[in-house]
């Protein structure tokens, strides 16, 4: 919006037709990126398809006020990135993108730039594009912007959220499955906040979370729709950052832990395999050991057995991401640590060689300081070059 207005003023003030024509020509040629004074130095925006290098490809979106750019960069040389697509959006509100499991498509929610509705509560749209940015099309309207779509395992459909807000109340909510042909099925309909979690590996069951005064509860429903069923009570309070294990038998998430003088989040694992869901990591009796630490975003390792979590203990400096067994047994292993601050894990490459993390330079949850996205590979840490906020969509194999 600032850019738009500045351009309005530039055009307005252009005293000579030649100057005006030059401005228009630059815009029309799409050369504005080059006019940013080298901000995109090292980028190769001309190609839409990532060059195969053999190294896993990090897929991420980079925010700007009026449009976001989706990039791919090889893990072994992040400075050479390629633009997959640029998505225009309403001023100040970026897209919420999601990479399909097969890596061939990207879905996102967006407030369209011409909607005039730059407000988080405004109706968003769901779009999908091929992995190389081609074939972009709108799938759905009246979606909730900040709820990132969740893909089905076969990459043939996805779930987004639709809601109607009410003052002094949560509103009404739907989780809607939509095929790539645009056929919608309402999976869950409720008067409390709903969040999509994910599908079971074979795609038959869909898990979701609902927030209410009762706390955070996990539910499930057949992926084709039908009656919803409660699965487990995750917390009396806000649980968050839930991740289904690759085999669909466990759910990792953050649950608040109150030790009386401190409240923090800790990684928790719920076993979904039996008739009754049960905690297998960080049951209530294990609270003491982590009483002074915050844990962040428990994600599954590619092996499907272990977890990677961020952990920041009071007074610590340079807190790396940690790998641990989901069952809570065995030694923890630290990844390459930052000199200060702390890491929050985001996504492993499929080969387990690289981990994208969000690094914070601060020393507490309340004051986390500035942040960058980095890639940790072995003992090496690389910063993902960016001119603004980054959201990591995931990784693609580097073979092609």
């Amino acid at each position, binding site marked *: 919006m600032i850019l738009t207005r500045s351009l309005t003023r530039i055009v307005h003030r252009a005293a000579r037709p030649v100057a005006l024509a030059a401005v228009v020509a630059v815009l029309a040629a799409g050369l504005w990126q080059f006019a940013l004074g080298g901000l995109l130095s090292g980028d190769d925006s001309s190609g839409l398809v990532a060059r195969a290098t053999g190294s896993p490809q990090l897929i991420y979106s980079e925010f700007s006020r009026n449009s976001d750019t989706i990039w791919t960069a090889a893990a072994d040389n992040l400075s050479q990135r390629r633009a997959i697509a640029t998505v225009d959006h309403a001023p100040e509100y970026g897209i919420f993108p999601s990479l399909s499991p097969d890596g061939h498509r990207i879905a996102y929610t967006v407030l369209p730039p011409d909607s005039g509705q730059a407000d988080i*509560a405004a109706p968003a749209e769901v779009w999908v594009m091929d992995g190389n940015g081609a074939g972009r099309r709108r799938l759905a309207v009246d979606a909730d912007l900040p709820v990132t779509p969740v893909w089905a395992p076969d990459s043939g459909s996805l779930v987004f959220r639709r809601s109607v807000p009410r003052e002094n109340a949560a509103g009404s909510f739907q989780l809607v499955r939509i095929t790539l042909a645009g056929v919608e099925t309402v999976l869950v309909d409720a008067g409390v906040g709903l969040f999509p979690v994910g599908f079971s590996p074979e795609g038959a069951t869909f898990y979701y979370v609902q927030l209410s005064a009762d706390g955070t509860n996990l539910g499930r429903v057949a992926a084709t729709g039908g009656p919803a069923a409660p699965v487990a009570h995750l917390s*009396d309070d806000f649980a*968050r950052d839930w991740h289904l294990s690759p085999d669909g038998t466990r759910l990792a998430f953050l649950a608040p832990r109150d030790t009386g003088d401190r409240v*923090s989040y800790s990684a928790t694992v719920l076993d979904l395999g039996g008739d009754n869901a049960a905690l297998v990591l960080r049951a209530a009796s294990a609270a003491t050991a982590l009483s002074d630490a915050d844990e962040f975003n428990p994600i599954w390792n590619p092996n499907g057995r272990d977890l990677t979590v961020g952990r920041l203990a009071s007074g610590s400096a340079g807190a790396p991401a940690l790998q641990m067994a989901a069952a809570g047994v065995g030694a923890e292993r630290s990844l390459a640590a930052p000199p200060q601050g702390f890491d929050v894990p*985001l996504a492993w490459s499929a080969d387990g060689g690289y981990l994208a993390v969000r690094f914070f330079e601060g020393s507490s949850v309340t004051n986390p300081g500035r942040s960058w996205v980095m890639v940790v590979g072995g003992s090496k840490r690389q910063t993902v070059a960016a*001119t603004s906020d980054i959201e990591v969509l995931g990784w693609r194999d580097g073979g092609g």
Partner: protein
Amino acid sequence: MKRLALLALAITASGVVSLAKPALPVSGCCLPTAPNTYECPEDRGLYLKAMDLAAFNMLFPGDEYFGLPRLETGLRASRSSTEPVIPPILLRSIGWIESVITQATRAIPYGAIGPALISFDCGHGIMQVTSGMTTPLGEGDYEGYASPEQLLVATNYVYNIARGAVILAVKWNAAPENRPIAGTDTNSDPALVENWYFAVWSYNGFTGPGAKRSNHPMDPIYGGWPRVPYSCGPANDGFGHNRGNYPYQELVWGCAAHPPVVNGSSLWSPFELAYPDLNDPRFRGPLNLANFVSPYAAMDIPTPYYAHRDPTDKPRDSLRAQIVGSPQLGLSKTDVRVLVGKERKTIAPQEVIISNQGSGILSWMAIPSASWLQVSPIAGVAVGPELPCSPGAPCEREAKLTLTINTAALPKGTQTAKVRIISPASDETQTINVTIASLTKIGAPGLTKN
């Protein structure tokens, strides 16, 4: 009373404001089309001064609609009130989040006159005032039209900012009956900026957890955890800029600490504000999910530490006159006489120039007395000569009012009607008398008489 009742209902039933958006069709809002307004130069100097005046209740003290109410202070069981002062940093930061501190739509350059910024949900101007702006609230002589207050909010940045400040103060005073108190350990002192945490949250809407406009800081709808602080500063400053990742009060807190940069200069000095410590049970406990139940009595929190007082000096009294001005309504003519032929098929539109003979912004609205008499535009501004315009920018300081006769609805014979031009800021009303007379041939050829 009817207007006030409707207004109260609107405040209670809806989110007060919405975030910024360019002007689009404004159906359902108090004015049928976006009226012209004045947009100050890009440095926002006039707007920031007006915000300081509004914060210290120096714009319209005592005014029922545009003057700040006294602020409640103290604990739940022992509330009293104090002189109203809002930390100015909050109005600056809210203004930027709402509209990037612009009164006109984004198509209008700075230092210019053009259509006002009106959002899809009738948020108006700099402070994106929504409450009381969704339907015409005029009554009596204004029945069916915008009320004078609505006109001023829509067209005049001074009143828009003043009203935004009032709404924020009303949100402050909503505690403890309908909102939690922040500052249980500091007597809920409004001089401590951090004590405005819930009031700022409420300015955008106190909606429930899980909603897309939840604003609850623990809500998982806001992406990853923890959140990098929000920034209105440069995109590459290492802080966050995508507004969809933040509850409203964190947008405002972040913008205060990381101010916008315009033409190389920050619009204000960075002002770090403390957030509730979410590891501390004194904050985290009240923010428990189970406590988000109206009237939120279990959500009271201490003052986030370490709290800050806004060091902004109270403006000098003379600043008010400079900002508010002294508008005076001027009309190029007050009698419009139209002679029409027998056929009465068409009648050429008539024009009246509305000017500001004084200073500041003169907001006006035109109300015709007859259905066959149409006015366009229905409202707008006439701008005093002291307000700066950018070279070459559209800046017609005088407004051109077009009177159109709808011949299909025009009764036969001589007709008279009036157009009342109201200027609420100067408390003036002038009338344009319109006479439609028929041309009738009588007597000798060439001699006419009506």
